[in-house]
């Protein structure tokens, strides 16, 4: 630091701690609510210290044997659906954009630039602006209430394709020539040179896309009508649809904790990749 200023240092820490506390407070309350019985939670003011019913609440939520209004499907099942959806979306996005970036950079074929611009334009068509017709297409293909319906319409990715394209453009031609001299065909080059070189980009993208897939809301809301296909984000919304009086807030809050856990873990454990992923995909 440039100058020593005790007062300013204290202020910095104070502001940051206040920030952290304010950011964490909602989640703390959620956690506390998930450890009490329903009666304790709905009386105002609810207790602010964790109670002793955590185990019951979480097992009730996970197994789905409850009686409140709204959906009573098992959250365990929803977590599975969310996990599969998020993984499929993340992995499919990465592999598809890797392949198309490879094709665009290393092969000459008709309409190459047209396809490139077409991919670029999808940036301007987020799901939200074309929900109606996209829903129709998926319904016509008979993909409602299936993993394919949940994932396939979301797996195209302009940002990922760009990222890989930019990356491939920085790979020196010598490497390509060397590979050719050694008798490697294009697929061999792809497998043994490009894929290993892009692992760090792939990890970064994986974090971002996993969170994207897990947190999808509008699209699953439309394509899933059966309880067995609800991702957890939809399930939690369905649980509170009965109004204040009948909602089992303790169970809902336990579900909220469960729904937050996997993506939060991914972000915190893979923090380095997460930061890289954010900065790379947006710039």
């Amino acid at each position, binding site marked *: 630091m440039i100058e020593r200023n005790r007062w300013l240092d204290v202020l910095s820490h104070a502001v940051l701690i206040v920030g952290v506390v304010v950011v964490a407070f909602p989640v703390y309350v959620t956690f506390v609510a998930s450890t009490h019985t329903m009666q304790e939670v709905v009386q105002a003011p609810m207790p602010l210290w964790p109670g002793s019913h955590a185990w019951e609440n979480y097992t009730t939520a996970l197994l789905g044997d409850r009686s409140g209004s709204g959906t009573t499907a098992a959250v365990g099942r929803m977590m599975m659906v969310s996990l599969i959806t998020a993984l499929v979306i993340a992995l499919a996005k990465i592999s598809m954009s890797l392949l198309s970036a490879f094709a665009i950079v290393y092969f000459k074929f008709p309409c190459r630039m047209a396809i490139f611009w077409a991919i670029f334009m999808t940036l301007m*068509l987020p799901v939200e602006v074309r929900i109606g017709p996209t829903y129709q297409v998926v319904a016509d293909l008979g993909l409602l209430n299936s993993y394919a319906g949940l994932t396939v319409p979301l797996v195209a990715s302009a940002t990922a394709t760009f990222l890989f394209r930019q990356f491939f453009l920085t790979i020196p031609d010598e490497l390509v020539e060397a590979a050719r001299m050694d008798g490697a065909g294009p697929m061999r080059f792809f497998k043994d040179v490009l894929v290993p070189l892009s692992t760090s980009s792939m990890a970064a993208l994986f974090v971002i896309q996993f969170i994207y897939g897990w947190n999808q809301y509008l699209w699953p809301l439309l394509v899933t009508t059966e309880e067995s296909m609800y991702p957890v984000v939809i399930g939690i*919304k369905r649980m509170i649809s009965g109004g204040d009086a009948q909602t089992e807030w303790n169970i809902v809050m336990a579900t909220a904790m469960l729904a937050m856990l996997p993506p939060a873990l991914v972000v915190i454990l893979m923090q380095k990749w997460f930061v890289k992923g954010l900065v790379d995909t*947006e710039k």
Partner: protein
Amino acid sequence: MLIAPQVSVIGIFFFWPALQALLQSLQQSDAFGTSVEWVGFANFQRLWQDASYLESFQTTAVFSSLVAVLGIGISLCLAYFADRVVRGTVVYRTLLIWPYAVAPAVAGVVWLFLFSPSIGVVSYALNQWGFEWNALLNSRHAMALIVMAAVWKQISYNFLFFLAGLQSIPKSLIEAAAIDGAGPWRRFWTIQFPLLSPTSFFLLVINVVYAFFDTFGIVDAATKGGPGKDTAILVYKVYFDGFKALDLGGSAAQSVVLMVIVVALTVVQFRFVEKKVNY
């Protein structure tokens, strides 16, 4: 072909529906889709005369400017102090970034619970202090609720970018200013803030896009667009009119308006972010 999967997905799920939206916006059909009639721009005309649509525009504008300004302001402040502290930057960063991972709908549910008029902790505290809080009846309160939830979720993202921006400012500049006798306040406004302007501008665009499109989950979970239609942002209205009220033509016309907005925002982003705003 290597590119076939990508092309088929964007063809089937992006361009075909977008085209359909364009066509439908020019048509009028009944709820069962049995009769379709070309009506030209009538759907759009109807939109311009529809008071609730114009109101939704206003709501969206208020909502997104509040989210962008508050989100950017708070996170800039946090990032500045995080950059200042000598030890613990990484710890604070870890503690501040995880809300990014929370799904918008889950954030909506959590904030709804905190501020629920009958059982919420915060609303109880507010009532104790003599402030009548009721997000179910008062549209200002409902708006405040979704703004808070949206800002809460977006702070981590802005924070990361500001922190990265601040850390990339050369230390020598700051030291030179300090030697010239500029205090921390002065240094912030004359050196760090101007140098952060590209980041700020980029974040402004991103935050507006976020407030427009990614907050659907928050709105749907926390207020369902209510009370009345007072927090129905544009995306929520497209969903509501198309899927709940089954007005396909009107919904498609709204989609087209949204598309135009997205295209405009994207163009702005690329034109200016590429050039980098500089003083």
